Structure formats: structure tokens, C-alpha cells
């Protein structure tokens, strides 16, 4: 068994409105910053033991599809590091 650390990034699909990010962008502009766009993402860090990188990736992907992301609104990516 090897310990892996996985990072799952969940972001809204292109075209899905993000009112919180818009509000945050406006707040930055109110502070005098100039910026073209701002989006927010959720990031999860997971540690797990697995036989192989593939099986670790498979499990983390399943966790993401079952709970961490909502396929109606979200795209996600999974990156893995061996610890």
C-alpha cells in the first residue's frame, strides 16, 4: 500500500452564474483593485492508502462524483501525489 494525497478541484461549469464570486469581485473593485474576472473554486485535499495510483484515482473520482461535485453544475479535476 502506498499513501497518496489527492487534490480535488471543483468549479462551476462555464456559463453557470456565480453570485458569490461576483460580489467578491465588486468588493475588490470597491477597494480600488482593477481586475477582469474572478471565480471561486472548492478544493478538497484527501489522503488515502491504495495499491496503485490508478486505484487511488478511481476512488477519489468516485468520491467526487458521488458527493463532492454536483454534475448538474460542476466540472472537477483530480490530481494525485505519492506521499
Amino acid at each position, binding site marked *: 500500500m502506498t499513501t497518496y494525497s489527492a487534490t480535488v478541484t471543483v468549479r462551476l461549469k462555464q456559463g*453557470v*452564474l*456565480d*453570485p458569490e464570486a461576483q*460580489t467578491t469581485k465588486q468588493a475588490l473593485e470597491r477597494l480600488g483593485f482593477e481586475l477582469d474576472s474572478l471565480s471561486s473554486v472548492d478544493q478538497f485535499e484527501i489522503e488515502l492508502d491504495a495499491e496503485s495510483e490508478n486505484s487511488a484515482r478511481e476512488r477519489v473520482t468516485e468520491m467526487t462524483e458521488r458527493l463532492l461535485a454536483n454534475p*448538474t453544475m460542476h466540472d472537477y479535476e483530480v490530481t494525485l501525489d505519492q506521499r
Partner: protein
Amino acid sequence: MTVAVIQFGGSNCDRDTVRALDALDIDAELVWHEDGLPADVDGIVLPGGFSYGDYLRAGAMAAQSPILEDVRTVTEEGKPVLGICNGAQIGCESSLTPGAFTVNKSARFQCEHVHLRVENAETPWTSGYNKGDVVTFPIAHGEGRFEIADERLEELEAENRVLFRYCDANGNITDEANPNGSKHNIAGITGERDSVAVMMPHPERASLADIGTTDGQDVLRAFAQT
């Protein structure tokens, strides 16, 4: 027969729902989600509230409760199942109904009375209204914006599965009358069977004459038809 109103940690419209059903002489009882459904259950309400503190996404945690599998079985028997507000979010998160309810366009919690236009009066939930009727229900949510992929939305509308849309006092579907930025002003939909429905507005808070409008009673009467 009884209607099970399922309580999760953080549900807060559960007792209101039982009271509203009682007022219509519909037998209802509170059921803690870990206790499973009573054997004689003839309908289910997933009530409003803030189950699991809205962690991750509103409804996401409750949707993983094992009782949702039992709820699915009940829906397959054709018995009425209604998700209200947080219950609607749970319904979408558990795929009883399509789409998702997410952060209001205003990024604020909105608590107000809204006008709804009845879009389909041929469902158990709307048979007490006429198509095109304008009714008044309260809303109270921060995550009520209905999101769905455009092609799924087209299907949903083609299949006549929209129950209510947010409208103005005259029944016009406008952006101004859309309190949360929902796609096509959608406030409530049915599942694949029309015995399953979810809606963000609160029919149970519009069911007792003492507290104002009783427009919501007809939605709850679906439970008397079984």
C-alpha cells in the same frame, strides 16, 4: 395511512408541515431520518430547513442519508413525495428530480411573499388550481436558483414538468418577478412521475388562515388523494 415528514438535523419546517397537514385532516407524523419509514407510509414530505448546516451544498449531506433509498422505493410505488425548500434541494441532490437549487442571483437570503403562476394543473399537486392561476406563497432561501443544463431544461418543459413559475401579480413571467435568478423563473417541478415534486416556495406556510394566505393548501391536498 400516514404522511411521513422526515426530520434531519437542521430541519426546521417539519412541525409546521405536520400542523398544516393536520389542518387538512391528513394524518402526518414526524420521522427521524435514522429511524426509517413507518410501514404504513402513504406519502412523504422532505421539509424545509438547513439540514447539516447546508455544508458542501444545501441538501447534499441529507441526500446521502440511507432513508433516501427508502424514499426512492416509495416514489416507485407511485405514492406522493414532496420536497419543500431544503427538501427540494435534497430532492435534486438525490436525483429524485433533475437540476439543482443553488445560490440566489442576489447572493442574499430572501424571505418574502412571491407570486407563482400555475403552469400545469393536471398533477396531484396542482389539481386544485387552474392553469394560469396566480397564487401567493412565501419563500425563505439563500439557495433557490434553479439551475439545469439547457437541453435538460428543454426536455423538462416539453414534458410539462414545471409546476409553478415566479411571476408578477398579473401572471407575467418577468425578470423582475424572479426572486432568485431561476432558469425560466422555475419555482417547482415534478420528477419522472408527477407524484414526485419539489418546490422552493413554502405551501405549508400558506395553509393556515390565521397566518395569512391559504393558497398552499391545494398542494398539500395531494396527500389526501391517495
